[in-house]
């Protein structure tokens, strides 16, 4: 039997290869995210006060909603072609299926965030690039990708998967959402928030707890 890391890399390479051929997930993430940003930019004047107050909310609502739509697409094909079933009759631990999906979605999400943030910084005249935000994004993306991949697989069988995924996902990721919005606000307002380390602790704890919980539950749920 192959070692887990090798199997994980084979699964990741396969998903990346499929994405390079279809470009569906990345295009959905970037286009939908940018569309929301553009609508907000049209509806607000270039008022730095508004941007400072609502910039973080605008940025992350675009990432969250674009992410949940892209996630539905990401898992739809697996369900439609029954390729998930195919992996379940292969010598692949079910946790690895979740990890590979999470890692690939993490990559796509990170790429789309770079693009969305670049465009947003121009449209809203925001200076948002800092090490603090990069660290925050990594912690947020890990949690969002793991929880999203878990519910993406579960909701892929449902006829109303788009609604179901969003309804399941957003309440659960509230702690990391609050963390990343607080961090982004600090960066936009150039504030030195003494609570950053506390929030970072919340974000990292969330990631560890949900990575453990979701990988345990994923095996149980997928077996049924």
């Amino acid at each position: 039997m192959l070692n887990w890391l090798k199997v994980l890399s084979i699964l990741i390479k396969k998903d990346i290869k499929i994405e390079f051929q279809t470009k569906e997930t990345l295009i959905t993430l970037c286009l939908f995210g940018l569309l929301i940003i553009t609508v907000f930019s049209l509806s607000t004047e270039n008022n730095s006060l508004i941007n400072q107050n609502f910039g973080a909310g605008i940025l992350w609502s675009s990432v969250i909603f674009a992410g949940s739509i892209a996630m539905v697409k990401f898992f739809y094909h697996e369900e439609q072609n029954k390729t998930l079933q195919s992996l379940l009759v292969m010598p692949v631990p079910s946790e690895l299926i979740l990890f590979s999906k999470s890692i690939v979605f993490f990559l796509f999400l990170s790429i789309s965030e770079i693009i969305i943030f670049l465009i947003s910084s121009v449209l809203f005249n925001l200076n948002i690039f800092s090490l603090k935000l990069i660290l925050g994004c990594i912690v947020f993306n890990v949690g969002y990708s793991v929880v999203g991949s878990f519910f993406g697989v579960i909701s892929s069988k449902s006829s109303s998967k788009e609604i179901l995924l969003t309804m399941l996902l957003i309440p659960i990721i509230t702690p990391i959402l609050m963390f990343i919005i607080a961090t982004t606000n600090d960066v936009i307002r150039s504030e030195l928030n003494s609570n950053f380390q506390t929030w970072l602790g919340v974000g990292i704890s969330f990631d560890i707890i949900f990575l453990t919980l979701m990988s345990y539950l994923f095996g149980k749920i997928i077996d049924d």
Partner: protein
Amino acid sequence: MKVNAKKVLSLNNISKSYQNNLVINNFSIDFNYGNSVGMIGKNGSGKSTILKISCGLLKPDSGNVLLMGKSFDSTEDGLLIKSRMGVVLHEEMLYPQLTVFENLNFYSKILGIKNVNTKIEELSTLLKLSDYLKISVSKLSNGNKKRVSFAKSLLNDPDILFADEPESNLDDKGKEIVSKIFNDRRKRGLTNFFSTHSKIFLEKCSNQLINLKDFENA
């Protein structure tokens, strides 16, 4: 790895229902290595469910499954069993975005096959797929998709091959190839367990028959 179990598959008192509709009731059967077991029954009699339970894709409501003397309940045993079985279902379970070669290459790597190219070449020759290796699966006919699905399930030369209506979607030539594969496997002491509606295919490929009609009132 050699598993010392006489019975390749044992289903013991299996029951399965879907939303209060009892499909399989207390079904038990076992068979030894080197058999080709064909299963017949009318639509909805539970053929696909029995196959899916046997290969670990479905969990029975009650009863237990032993494959090569091991149970899917243990993760380690489950992985060992899966490395030595092949599954062909109604759905081809292939990535339509990838080419035939890429699909087979992916599954070969997952199964830890050595000499991947040689194995793919050997199977594509056997299943007359050599001309399609560089073609995307989405562009193949249903019959050729089924052949790729067979190639995928034979990559690890499985001890037991599960097939749900293996002859469906295949033309006469395809059916002939598949029946030859089944018979060659049986001669080599390997096991096939399949469901079918075709009496001709059943006669050609099986040496043991399960008629689900016989279990209806069991």
